């Protein structure tokens, strides 16, 4: 039995309400049971802030996850939304199905480096391919925390485990995978930098299609020691911001250079921090990332975005109404209609 108390519901008297009259505290979930100091908890706080700032009604959100420390976190935010804690590595399938059935909800999938890049790598790739409209957060700490700290598929060569042995196998960079497979929103951030992370999450939520955010999220218990390349200290030394993103929901905002105008008229404003970096050139971004990775730098920011992609519903020409809102006769038109359809395939 734990003696731990819950976070008191009482809040700062001056806490501001958003357009829905809700405070930031209304977007929280239950108390985290992750280790104290886990990067994932900071990401949870960033999610809470982003959803509150965008005034998204919690009951219009579906939270999806697989298995792992990261996949526990949907419990810790948006206590009044829908959720599905699915099978290990299979969150993309569930997300795809949910989105196919009800395209009007806001989808957020939370996964980890094990869930996405080991057991679920195939699912991850096909989710990108299908361009399912979903905010996909990969909480990346380089280890399997729940099973006591084995190297994961994102561990860098030479990075040391807690007991001292160095990793020998090359890492999978999820950002490069996403770029290669045609993702139209690719970002990387750090759990310890909410100033960067919150605007990225907001921009991702407005993106019309699959939005991928890789977040370096130190495992304070198994991967925060000297010699680790995913520790708080190492991350702070080696992360380099190449693009800063601002999300501008006002539709009348004057569009400037470097802005990406989204389908609903809102704007993601990108400010290049690194000279010569072009966040609209997919090949150039891939090359830039690879080159800097070799130099030991981990680049952060909204690395690539394009408003051009067509999401799953556009590709599949699905009905515009969520299935739940369709009249039964239309959803299930009967045997005659099925026969007619089958005949058309002959």
């Amino acid at each position, binding site marked *: 039995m734990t*003696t731990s108390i819950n976070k*008191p519901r009482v809040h*700062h008297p001056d806490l501001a309400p958003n357009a829905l009259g809700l405070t930031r505290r209304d977007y929280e979930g239950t108390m*985290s049971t992750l280790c*104290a*100091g886990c990067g994932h908890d900071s990401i949870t706080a960033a999610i809470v802030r982003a959803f509150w700032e965008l005034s998204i009604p919690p009951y219009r959100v579906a939270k999806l996850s697989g298995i792992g420390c990261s996949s526990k976190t949907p419990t810790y935010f948006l206590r009044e939304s829908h959720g599905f804690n699915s099978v290990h590595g299979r969150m993309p399938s569930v997300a795809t199905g949910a989105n196919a059935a009800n395209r009007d909800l806001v989808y957020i999938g939370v996964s980890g480096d094990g869930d996405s890049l080991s057991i679920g790598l195939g699912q991850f790739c096909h989710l990108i391919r299908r361009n399912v409209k979903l905010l996909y957060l990969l909480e990346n700490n380089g280890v399997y925390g729940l099973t006591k700290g084995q190297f994961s598929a994102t561990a860098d060569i030479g990075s040391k485990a807690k007991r001292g042995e160095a990793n020998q196998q090359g890492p999978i960079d999820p950002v490069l995978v996403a770029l290669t497979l045609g993702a139209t929103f690719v970002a990387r951030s750090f759990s310890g930098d909410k100033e960067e992370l919150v605007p990225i999450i907001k921009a991702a939520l407005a993106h019309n299609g699959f939005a991928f955010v890789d977040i370096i999220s130190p495992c304070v*218990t198994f991967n*925060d020691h000297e010699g680790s390349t995913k520790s*708080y*200290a190492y991350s702070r030394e080696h992360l380099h911001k190449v693009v800063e993103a601002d999300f501008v929901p006002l539709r009348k905002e004057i569009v400037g250079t470097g802005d990406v105008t989204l389908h609903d008229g809102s704007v993601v404003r990108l400010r290049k921090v690194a000279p010569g970096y072009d966040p609209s050139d997919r090949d150039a971004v891939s090359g830039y990332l690879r080159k800097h990775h070799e130099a030991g730098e981990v680049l952060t920011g909204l690395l690539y975005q394009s408003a051009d992609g067509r999401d799953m519903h556009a590709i599949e020409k699905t009905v515009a109404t969520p299935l739940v809102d369709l009249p039964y006769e239309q959803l299930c038109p009967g045997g005659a209609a099925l026969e007619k359809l089958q005949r058309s395939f002959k």
Partner: protein
Amino acid sequence: MLPTNVTDPSYYHRVVDCQWACPAHTNVPEYIRLIAQGRYADSYLLNRESNVFPGILGRTCDRPCEPACRRTRVDGKPVAICRLKRVAADLRGDIQDRLPQAPAFKNGKRVACVGAGPSSLTVANDLMPLGFEVVIYEKLPHSGGLMRTNIPSFRLPASVLDEEVEMIVGMGVDVRYDTPVSSMRALLGEGYDAVYVGSGAPKGKELDIPGRHDSDQIHIGIEWLESVHFGHITTAAPRVLIIGVGNTSMDCCRTAKRLGGTDVKVIARRSRRHFKASPWELADAEEEQVEIVENHAPKRFVVEGGKLVGMEFEVLQWGEDGNGRAMSTVQGTVIIPCDLVLLAIGQENAFPWVERDVGISFDEKGLPVVDRVTMMCSRPGVFFGGDAAWGPENIIWAVAHGHAAAISIYNHCYGIAVTERPPEGMTLTSSKMGIHQWSYHNDYSAAERAKMTHVDLRERFRELSREVELGFTPEQTADEVQRCLNCDIETHFTDRLCIECDACIDICPVDCLTITHNGSNEAELRIRLTAPTPNLSQPLFVSGPLPQTKRIMVKDENICLHCGLCAERCPTAAWDMQEFDLKLSYAGRSV
């Protein structure tokens, strides 16, 4: 900004708002925890250490602690600190063998105190256990000063007063009743090593307007209360006006209600927000159907054929003059009929018995010139305290003065400079018991402030000495103690341990914490906080540079719940919850 120096006891002391506001610096959170544990005797004795009269103060204190209480800033109502003190006093059981004792062997120092009120009794309380011989001169046949003659027994039963006075007098204090001091020179001639004047401010202010001396139904409030106390006055006429709206006025109007007053009005010159009476005393009076009349200035007494029939007032409207000062304009006059008037417009000190050539300087207002720290006047070895020093205050200030004077008297008698004050100290002890376990109840209780139960209106008027407040029930006490936020369990930060994971900032329910780059001044820093705060009365804690980014941790102390979640979610124990214990020095007992 420079890092906050938390090794200075005054920083953490200030965080404990109640203790900081209390003139005697009673350790409130600790005594409330002791009540929560059912350790009433321990709680009582902890109180007694600093405030000497827990049973009396638990009923009558002016409660400077309660408006300061952090809980007010969290949910609008302070913890019922004062009435919890009464719980400890009522339930303490027998503590006789734990009270200070006077040694059989005396140190040969003799101290005279004038007046047997709270400040003189505090001096005796502090000095008797050190072997001093203390003589108290009291003009009345009993002790307690204004606590006995001015506070009606329906607020403070005589038995409670007697008990706590006896704890001091019983140490062997030589109290000479019915012995007014009529000459300071003569007293000084008695050869005492020190003289303490705790004779109060016994003179009620006069209201010299036409008709004042034309009727015997116009009284000075405190004199009238004293006469009631002595049984010289046992009835009041039906229609009573009380002029002035301080706490004495509240005692007058409520006493009048009990002696036959049926139409009792309290008349105030100004509007309600300027009233001097404590809000709870006003509420109690209004509960007893006393009418409060605002913005009326006395003009004259209406006496017809030697009989008081009413009082004429100017009805005022208040505004501001060009310099922002309050200014009144007269709207008209009104006569309010009445049979009895009590004047409660303030009290003054009177020292006709202090000769002006004995080396004691007086200022232009006729008050002795007294040092705020040492309580000594211009004549070495003579000290003033309580209302006698700077005019009417309250019991808890009188106690604080008594403690300070006792230190000075001790120094004076032992040839130490009175300005050499013993230091304040502190201890900080981690309250961590396990990953999620603390040595205090850290969960936030959403309970609302307990409401004191009163004897019903008819019953309370039946007998003058019927105590109105019944005290908290065990259930009320159990809830009320958990409303205390344990502000003395300090959030103690060690900057070199911080890895800037943000866990504390994310978990804090009231957005107290910020990690940011350092600023040049506090005002600039305040606007960059997670929750910007305009409350400048509450300090900011500022850490040294954090190891990884050289940013700083800033904590706004304003509404911290002391729930300990920052420390619970801290992976490196950079935050810890540490119990702060302020160590106060008393006469002969330096920390």
